[in-house]
């Protein structure tokens, strides 16, 4: 056995860094705190790569399968004899892969922010929040049990809240951060209920015993039914709600576009590459349960994923804020990953979707972080988020231009870039199991290529915009991460995922499926071609098209009015029709009853206090009258 106990530092270091920068950051020089944070994350990145190397290439396989290794584990809170929250580190193919994703992107973002956030007020606060986020995300990834995951799940939620609201004096940022927290909290309620149902039936939180395909937990839970479905299915559907909230799946997606109010490096790190894929990771983590004892829940995952990917892609075609286009694109791509998990089964050939999903998660993290950081560089030089303010930037931002182009080609699935490989596996997996979902995803591939090149052409080509200040290329702290990520996005398709990350840990034989690969490249090229015609030069086609499909365009442009629906539910229904009446009821019914008791008592006592007048004559009068009345009463009654 290899000793992995050093992995505790992967968790401890960012936490200590958070405390240091959070408590003492304002005393340090801004630059020093940034460098400290970056340096700390550099160490963690190194440790993660070391762990990945040791795990994938030197650890012992049993039966040809990677083993789940509990590097360390201690009881944090004991509930009952069997139920306890542990804190620990679990290493298995997906957690190690996520380690690489999280630390790589986070490290790049740390370096990038040294340039991007330079001179901002609250620089050290930014880095302390980034450290908090890295800590929470790594804890989520390495969790040994579902409750530990829930704990860090909430913590990433709060770090996301803090970072979206980083510009806390800007009302739109405050609103967005609040919305993100509350929407995901609502989804987390589902997650928590799912955990409760799961733990009630299986009496364990531990991932290894929960997901052991031949273990007691899976068989126990699936035999008990409730309202027509097994309790396992119910709990997995609830757990998926949590995942759907974090991963911005329909109908919980509304927080993600608004979350773009945060600084762009944050959007790259949290809202593109790492936190938003936590939902995918959660489903992958619980995958044996989904596949073996809750197939209905897995279908829900597939259909929600497919719908979201189409829905978001359509909206992305109409938006003009580049960060929002990228946000919808993220939702769409995560939909792909969910779908791939949804069509997979446990083990063997049919487990292709699982591997494809993880593969796409990996490549997506690289190219989407690259897209966001590139967008950041553009915004940094143009001082606007809107495509309408940009055009012809290829002359001014050569490095950004090339790296952005690579990212666009990658997401469009053009070989030999990495997106081609991972998307191809997903389409193949969908083709194997469900032709309808395959058709949806095939169409989405074309739409994706179209909207990506729509923004590419409008920003870097298109009309020659006159700028007040000539845009200039970003400093090296920003371009170096771009170049590194571009290399990652270009070549990571050649990583043999089928040998490393599979549903049962064993090697899966795959190859390029030409029947699917050729049409998918063609539809990508078609999308690019249409975008070329419409946006390469200034043209009136887009406006004409928009006028032609006036109503559908308007619906898509207004994001199908889901935001308005939410506002209606929260502002009108919850606030005006529940909270306000409850408050009124409390004051005017419950409290009034209590006050009435008091005032009745008081009123009665005012009435009867006249009897206690202190006048002897009155007392004598009452006494004698009473005595006579009693006497008369007795005489007549007892006769």
């Amino acid at each position, binding site marked *: 056995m290899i000793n992995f106990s050093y992995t505790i530092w992967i968790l401890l270091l960012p936490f200590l860094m958070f405390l240091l920068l959070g408590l003492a950051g304002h005393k340090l020089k801004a630059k020093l705190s940034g460098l400290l944070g970056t340096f700390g994350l550099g160490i963690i990145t190194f440790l993660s790569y070391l762990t990945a190397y040791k795990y994938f290439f030197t650890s012992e396989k049993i039966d040809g399968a990677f083993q789940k290794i509990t590097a360390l584990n201690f009881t944090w809170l004991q509930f009952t004899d069997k139920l306890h929250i542990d804190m620990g580190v679990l290493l298995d193919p997906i957690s190690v892969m996520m380690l690489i994703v999280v630390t790589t992107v986070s490290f790049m973002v740390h370096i990038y922010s040294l340039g991007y956030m330079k001179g901002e007020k609250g620089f050290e606060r930014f880095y302390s929040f980034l450290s908090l986020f890295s800590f929470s995300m790594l804890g989520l990834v390495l969790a040994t049990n579902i409750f530990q995951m829930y*704990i860090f799940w909430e913590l990433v939620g709060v770090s996301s809240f803090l970072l979206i609201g980083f510009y806390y004096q800007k009302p739109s940022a405050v609103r967005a951060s609040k919305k993100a927290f509350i929407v995901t909290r609502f989804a987390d309620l589902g997650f928590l209920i799912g955990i409760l149902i799961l733990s009630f039936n299986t009496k364990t939180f531990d991932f290894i015993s929960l997901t052991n395909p031949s273990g007691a937990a899976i068989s126990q839970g699936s035999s008990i039914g409730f309202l027509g479905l097994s309790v396992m299915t119910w709990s997995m559907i609830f757990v998926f709600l949590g995942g759907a909230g974090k991963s911005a799946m329909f109908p919980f997606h509304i927080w993600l576009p608004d979350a773009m109010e945060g600084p762009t490096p944050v959007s790259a790190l949290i809202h593109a590459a790492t936190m938003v894929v936590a939902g995918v990771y959660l489903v992958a983590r619980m995958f044996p349960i989904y596949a073996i004892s809750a197939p209905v829940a897995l279908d829900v995952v597939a259909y929600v994923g497919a719908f979201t990917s189409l829905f978001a892609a359509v909206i992305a075609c109409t938006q003009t804020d580049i960060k929002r286009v990228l946000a919808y694109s993220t939702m769409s791509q995560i939909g792909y990953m969910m779908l791939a998990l949804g069509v997979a089964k446990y083990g063997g050939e049919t487990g292709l979707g699982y591997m494809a999903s993880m593969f796409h998660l990996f490549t997506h993290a690289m190219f989407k972080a690259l897209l966001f950081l590139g967008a950041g560089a553009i915004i940094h030089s143009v001082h606007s988020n809107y495509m309408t303010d940009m055009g012809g930037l290829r002359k001014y931002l050569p490095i950004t231009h090339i790296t952005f182009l690579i990212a666009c080609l990658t997401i469009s699935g053009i070989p030999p870039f990495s997106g081609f490989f991972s998307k191809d596996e997903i389409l193949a997996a969908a083709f194997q199991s469900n032709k309808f979902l395959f058709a949806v995803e095939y169409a989405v591939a074309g739409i994706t290529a179209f909207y990506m090149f729509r923004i590419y052409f409008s920003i870097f080509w298109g009309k020659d915009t006159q700028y007040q200040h000539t845009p200039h290329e970003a400093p090296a702290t920003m371009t170096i991460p771009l170049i590194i990520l571009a290399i990652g996005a270009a070549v990571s398709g050649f990583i043999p995922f089928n040998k490393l990350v599979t549903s049962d840990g064993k090697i899966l034989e795959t190859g390029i499926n030409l029947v699917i690969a050729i049409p998918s490249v063609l539809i990508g090229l078609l999308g690019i071609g249409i975008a070329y015609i419409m946006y390469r030069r200034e043209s009136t086609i887009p406006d004409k098209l928009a006028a032609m499909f006036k109503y559908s365009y308007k619906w898509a442009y207004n994001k199908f009015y889901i935001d308005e629906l939410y506002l209606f539910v929260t502002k009108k229904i919850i606030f005006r029709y529940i909270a306000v009446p409850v408050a009124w009821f409390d004051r005017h019914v419950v409290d009034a009853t209590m006050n009435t008791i008091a005032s009745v008592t008081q009123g009665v006592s005012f009435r009867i206090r006249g009897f206690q007048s202190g006048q002897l004559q009155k007392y004598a009068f009452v006494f004698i009258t009473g005595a006579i009345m009693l006497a008369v009463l007795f005489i007549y009654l007892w006769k």
Partner: protein
Amino acid sequence: MDILSLFVVIPVLTITAILLLKDTRQVRVVSAFGMGLQLLMAGTLVFLYLSARHAGNSDEMLFVKDYLWFKSLNIHYSVGVDGISVAMIALTSLVVFAGIFASWEVEFLRKEFFVSLILLATGVFGFFISIDLFTMFLFYELAVIPMYLLIGIWGTGPKEYSAMKLTLMLMGGSALLLVGLLGIYFNSSPDANRLTFNILEISKVVIPLPAQRIFFPLTFVGFGVLGALFPFHTWSPDGHASAPTAVSMLHAGVLMKLGGYGAFRVAIFLMPEAAHELSWIFIILTSISVVYGAFGAIAQKDLKYINAYSSVSHCGLVLFAVLMMNQTAMNGAIIQMISHGLMTALFFALIGMLYGRTHTRIIYEMGGLMKIIPFLGVCYVIAGLASLGLPGLSGFVAEATIFVGAFQHPELFYRIVTILAVSSIVITAVYVLRVIAILLLGPTTNEHFEHLPDARWFEKISVVTLIGSVAAIGLAPFWLSSMIGTSLHPIIDKIIALNPF
């Protein structure tokens, strides 16, 4: 002198010292010294308790002392603690300590203020160390009386009304409670000639079920009034809104916990069969408290009202969990009492500090304060996050324990209401974030507030003490949970022996 009685003696000595002082400026120093000593004592007690347990002492109560003081009714001054009361004592001394510093700048009748405040604390400490029902009740009443004066004299707004309402409602509760306690007393011995008020002795006999059916609801509601049980909670918003800062802190932080503690230690422990039989009624009421309080908080404008309704919701969760009558849920109930005590005290301290600066508690009149008073702002955010159950702070530990415990209940009805109660985590998030957004974030709305001073040193002591405790429980809950859990075993064993589920 035994260590437990010191918890009553030190405050009494502090009061005497204050009364003897000529210079009112020294009053607060003496108070701070006395309550600081008390905090040290509480630390010592925790240490002594844990080392005694570690050494293998498995008695139900430790440090037991017993003095007969009223022979004909067999009333004793009888003290003893287990892990639960030790935890409550530690909570009380923390909150009182923070409360003294939060009222550092009380000018009006300073001497009398501190005397009443510490007298109130004396009652609370006495309550938690007592194991004789009569003495316990005595201390309980001792705590309620100074409350009337503190709100009526040093309060704000319609203070006479609020003070009267609070006192009358709590006294109404006490009346029910007194009947309940006497009922227990007269059933405390099968042959009726060795009647006793001692909890440990009563727990060894089984009170006849018909008597339990009468006296359990009386006792439970009697304590429930103090624990803000729906629909007897309405003293809480008015009382808190009118009370001065330290009194709100003590009241919500500690005094409301007397209700939860009593409901658990007296009503359920001594009459478990009736508790089991009738629990569904009170489960419904407490679930209403939890959700209703949270919804009520969303629509409020006054910071103190928001916090009062939030307390109704959180304290409802305490009684809810106690009624689930299993080890985990009860453990959660007690952690929730401590957690809520600390964070609500923190809230009220901060609200008092904000009010001292802005002279308003209406959230819409403030805005963008984070930029002006970052220290207080950050502390308010931390308190808010603790309140909405963020992991790493104490609220999460309590709620997670309660929810997991309650969901282990074998009957489906109880699990369904648990889900209802769990849904409060979302509503809590809504009102907490609403307040933070309106109060602290966004642009500064009122230019008069541009130059408010940030926290002073005594305010920092008060706030940091509380935040430190909240974070300590949140980061390392295992020792607290196991300290409480060990002491719950005998109680749970008794409940299970009488109610085979």
